[in-house]
């Protein structure tokens, strides 16, 4: 039974290469060059899907991306199951497995079709009018039922194993669409030497030429002209040809998004190849040759399998060598449908009648049909059709009465709608032409529409239009170009049919096939006051299916215009939005998946820490060692040990992720004085200061250490996650507010590895490694900096502490970081010290009451809230954020201030983010916990909190709202270790 509906010969399929495939488990055969749709038709299969709302049987309507019905699932196995693909675009390959969707138990018998019987109860928008009672029943009862019924295909259930890549490209002329107009344009542009990219969504270039049987171009058959043109384009050195590539979106300034389907058409693709490639093309000139889409006719029963677009039928017969039926009726509203009739006739399909809806059918094509002996009847109307899973007969009305014609194929030629999608996305505004419909009106800089998509039909006209536009575009891009011209013969012009609204017939006449929107639904919507086309669309869902109304929008518009008695142009088109056809998430995400989703930044010491079995945490984009558990230790135990070691002996810490900015120039000190709240101008070379940076709105943005290396050179640190923000802020002020200052900022975050050595024996630990610097507390007091040699390499040595112990931060070149670290580690180990991670660092600094911007602050916290007001340079006239500090609310009483909390029960540990109330039962918070850690040193939880008027509440009892109930806590000073700083300066 295989391929009973193939023509004897002809078509562009390769009859020497049969391919096996299956549909719903049934094995069939097609040929190389087939689409799934053409192969199914060749096997006599029309029923391919069920509609969304009524589950009505549906067949293949079209031959391209406008197809609303033939949506299938393609299963390549192993996570490669793709739903909602159009059978008209799926290229056949050997072993292709396809399934129909949205039906149960089977395509031929679908239980969901009961909704078709209930249709009278389900008018458009019915769901807005019911399911109201009982309250809450919607989400619990009705909605789950509706959700189960809705939806089309199934999502894959495992991760997509395929690769997707992206690339940027630039060209002088981008030609979108490789039909006659596009190819003529590309030929002209490429001939000029311009950089040209030509893309077409089809597997083969040629567009309508691929289904052209008799026309001759420049004295040769169209097919030969096509071969010659492609050969020329392939030979052009600066020209790129992209088949299977859809231009899905137009973005600002001639940036066009293309999707290239690389492997879906291959039976066994090379694993190195991506499944799809996203192109982002920036083109000097864009030529849109997107063609046009044929309109279905709107009449009762117009949705049965076997009812197809005339142009599609012609394409299946001529291009694919398929006979889509045995006995056909052609319903024509314009001459072009006659081409289908002639093609069918030539292929041996009986054409029972061409029912021309016009009063007269005079053109060349009707005459050719008559000459071929095809019965042509004008003044016809299609009254209805019969047939359940396939059309059986067509009832045609004439002035004389009606006639029932047996047919298993009905071709609809409702005229052609120019494809305005990209033009409209580019903000072109169309006008309405009474004979063609909507066509481009306003010019778009750098974009030209050619051929059918601007209403130019007829082969000769399209070629001339394209050639002229291609040459013009190349010339605008700066190349010498000239358009060729070709004599065209045997391409009978076909009078174009203006879009017409159908008369109100009885029965359901479908407009949007996929969403089951009928002419009656549209009229009902207008009666209910939805008169704007956008309202009608949203209320009836017409044009909102996966085809986005490519075949239905213009018909819907006509019906609405008629119903509200307004001219079509007044009702207007709905907005065209990207993508033109659906684009896979994979392609849009590209390689940014898994580890490449976001860069992971690591320090020079990372590998060493990993080898030591460190646990890591994400801080911004950095991986930081959180703690270094020893055998048998959990994190809790390890952190306690690390803290104890730092307090008692010495600890080693990788602080390399700190942001670092080198501030250089005559006015460096003046600049920093203006940026930070502190007095820094008077900072002596060799000294450091803890400095706080505000935003102009007065809230704390960052803090860090400002070290003065020399009169005109500073080394400034920032928080790990704040480095870019702080540098950007500083650049903004230096470039735009104070350009008169002679100061230059350089990020040196990555230049220096920072090795922190902290603890009572820190000095002893590093002493032997540091050359020519007296480390004594007199010579190098806390908050000092020296340039020197450590372990024989250039270093910046800071005497600073974030633990409350004696501390040093050794900055050495990052490439030296590991070597120096290993030598310091030897010393630290020798003294019984330990390496510690960020968790211990947090505990140690909290015990000392040091804040972390981003932990204690949240963008609404002032420097006074943190109790850091002392840092503000008293005599300073101005600094960034100063003015805001005097705003009423920032100076008001009742602000949340940083305090410590001592829980009654020393064994309890609150969570960060817990709320604090004045009384156990209060429902309004007076504050919240910002930091909380267990602390062996203090012997209870170290808790920092922001509490309203906190500093005035010292000693008061407040309540931390723990998950298990309120817990009493005494407000205390956040500094719990060495308040007088004896250890620090020891």
């Amino acid at each position, binding site marked *: 039974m295989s391929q009973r509906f193939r023509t004897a010969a002809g078509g562009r399929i390769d009859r020497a290469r049969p391919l096996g495939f299956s549909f719903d488990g049934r094995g069939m055969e097609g040929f190389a060059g087939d689409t799934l749709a053409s192969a199914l038709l060749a096997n006599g299969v029309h029923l391919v899907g069920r509609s969304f709302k009524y589950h009505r049987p549906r067949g293949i309507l079209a031959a391209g991306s406008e197809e609303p019905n033939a949506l299938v699932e393609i299963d390549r196995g192993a996570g490669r199951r793709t739903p909602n693909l159009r059978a008209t675009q799926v290229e056949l390959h050997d072993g292709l497995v396809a399934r129909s969707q949205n039906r149960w138990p089977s395509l031929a018998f679908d239980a969901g079709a009961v909704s078709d019987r209930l249709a009278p109860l389900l008018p458009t928008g019915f769901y807005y009018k019911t399911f109201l009672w009982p309250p809450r029943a919607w989400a619990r009862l009705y909605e789950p039922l509706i959700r189960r019924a809705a939806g089309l295909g199934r999502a894959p259930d495992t991760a997509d194993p395929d690769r997707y890549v992206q690339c940027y490209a630039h060209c002088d002329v981008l030609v979108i669409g490789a039909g006659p107009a596009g190819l003529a344009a590309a030929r002209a542009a490429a001939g000029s030497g311009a950089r040209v990219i030509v893309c077409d969504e089809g597997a083969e270039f040629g567009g309508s030429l691929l289904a052209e049987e008799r026309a001759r171009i420049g004295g040769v058959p169209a097919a030969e002209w096509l071969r010659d043109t492609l050969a020329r384009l392939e030979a052009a050195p600066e020209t790129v040809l992209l088949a299977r590539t859809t231009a899905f979106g137009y973005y*600002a300034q001639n940036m066009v998004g293309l999707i290239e389907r690389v492997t879906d058409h291959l039976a066994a693709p090379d694993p190195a190849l991506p499944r799809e490639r996203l192109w982002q093309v920036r083109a000097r000139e864009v030529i849109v040759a997107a063609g046009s889409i044929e309109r279905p006719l709107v009449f009762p029963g117009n949705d049965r399998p076997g009812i197809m677009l005339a142009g599609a039928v012609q394409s299946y017969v001529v291009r694919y060598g398929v006979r889509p039926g045995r006995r056909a009726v052609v319903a024509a509203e314009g001459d072009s449908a006659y081409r289908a009739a002639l093609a069918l006739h030539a292929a041996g399909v009986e054409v029972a009648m061409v029912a021309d809806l016009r009063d007269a059918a005079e053109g060349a094509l009707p005459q050719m049909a008559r000459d071929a002996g095809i019965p042509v009847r004008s003044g016809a109307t299609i009254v209805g059709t019969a047939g359940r899973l396939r059309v059986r007969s067509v009832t045609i009305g004439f002035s004389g009465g009606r006639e029932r014609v047996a047919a298993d194929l009905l071709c609809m030629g409702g005229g052609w709608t120019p494809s305005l999608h990209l033009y409209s996305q580019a903000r072109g505004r169309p006008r309405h032409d009474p004979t063609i419909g909507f066509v481009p009106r306003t010019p778009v800089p750098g974009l030209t529409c050619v051929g059918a998509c601007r209403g130019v039909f007829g082969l000769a006209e399209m070629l001339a239009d394209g050639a002229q536009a291609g040459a013009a575009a190349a010339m605008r891009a700066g190349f010498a170009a000239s358009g060729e011209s070709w004599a065209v013969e045997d391409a009978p012009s076909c009078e174009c049919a203006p879009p017409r609204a159908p008369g109100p017939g009885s029965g359901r006449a479908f407009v949007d096939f996929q969403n089951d929107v009928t002419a009656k639904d549209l009229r009902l919507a207008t009666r209910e006051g939805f008169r704007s086309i956008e309202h009608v669309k949203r209320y009836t869902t017409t044009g909102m299916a996966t085809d986005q109304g490519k075949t239905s929008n213009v018909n819907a518009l006509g019906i609405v215009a008629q119903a509200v008695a307004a001219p079509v142009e007044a009702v207007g088109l709905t907005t065209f939005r990207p993508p033109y056809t659906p684009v896979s998430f994979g392609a849009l995400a590209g390689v940014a998946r898994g580890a490449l989703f976001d860069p992971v930044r690591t320090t020079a010491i990372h590998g060493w820490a990993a080898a030591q079995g460190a646990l890591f945490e994400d801080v911004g984009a950095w991986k930081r060692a959180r703690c270094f558990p020893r055998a048998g230790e959990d994190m809790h135990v390890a952190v306690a040990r690390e803290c104890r070691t730092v307090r008692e002996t010495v600890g080693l810490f990788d602080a390399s992720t700190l942001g670092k900015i080198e501030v250089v120039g005559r006015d460096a000190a003046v600049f920093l004085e203006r940026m930070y709240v502190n007095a820094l101008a008077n900072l002596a070379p060799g000294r450091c200061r803890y400095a706080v940076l505000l935003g*102009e709105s007065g809230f704390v943005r960052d803090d860090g250490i400002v070290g003065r290396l020399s009169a005109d050179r500073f080394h400034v640190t920032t928080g790990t996650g704040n480095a870019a923000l702080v540098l950007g802020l500083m650049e903004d002020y230096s470039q735009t507010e104070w350009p008169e200052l002679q100061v230059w900022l350089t990020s040196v975050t990555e230049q220096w590895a920072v090795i922190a050595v902290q603890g009572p024996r820190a000095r002893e630990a590093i002493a032997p490694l540091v050359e020519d610097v007296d480390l004594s507390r007199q010579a190098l007091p806390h908050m000092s900096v020296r340039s020197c040699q450590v372990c024989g390499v250039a270093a910046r040595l800071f005497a600073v502490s974030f633990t409350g112990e004696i501390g040093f931060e050794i900055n050495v070149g990052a490439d030296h970081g590991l070597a120096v670290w290993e030598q310091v580690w030897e010393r630290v180990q020798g003294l019984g010290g330990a390496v510690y991670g960020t968790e211990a660092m947090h505990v140690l600094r909290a015990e000392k009451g040091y804040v972390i911007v981003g932990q204690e602050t949240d963008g609404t916290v002032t420097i006074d809230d943190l109790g850091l007001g002392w840092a503000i340079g008293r005599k300073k006239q101005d600094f960034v954020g*100063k003015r805001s500090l005097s705003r009423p609310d920032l100076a008001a009483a009742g602000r949340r201030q940083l305090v410590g909390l001592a829980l009654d029960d020393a064994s309890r540990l609150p969570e960060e983010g817990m709320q604090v109330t004045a009384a156990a039962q209060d429902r309004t918070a007076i504050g919240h916990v910002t930091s909380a850690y267990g602390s062996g040193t203090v012997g209870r939880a170290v808790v920092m909190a922001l509490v309203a008027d906190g500093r005035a509440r010292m000693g008061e009892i407040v309540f931390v709202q723990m998950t298990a109930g309120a817990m009493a806590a005494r407000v205390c000073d956040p500094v719990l270790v060495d308040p007088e700083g004896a250890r620090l300066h020891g």
Partner: protein
Amino acid sequence: MLLIPCPFCGPRPEIEFVYGGEAHIARPADPSALDDAAWAAFLHTRSNPRGRHAERWRHLHGCARFFNVVRDTVTDRFAEHEAGG
């Protein structure tokens, strides 16, 4: 992706830039001289026009300079260059 005219590097893709908001909002020489309303206006009030907008961009991943341009906020088209910060 916008194509932004950098005065030093020429037209360059948007992802090399960071947006700097409305242009010509200079920090007052002496903020302490402003009352709260005037200071708030400097901090927060913007003209936010529908159409021509004088704005700042920084070519962060290029020459790293701040500059001003005029862009139409409806069409995204850039007009002439402006000098200074």
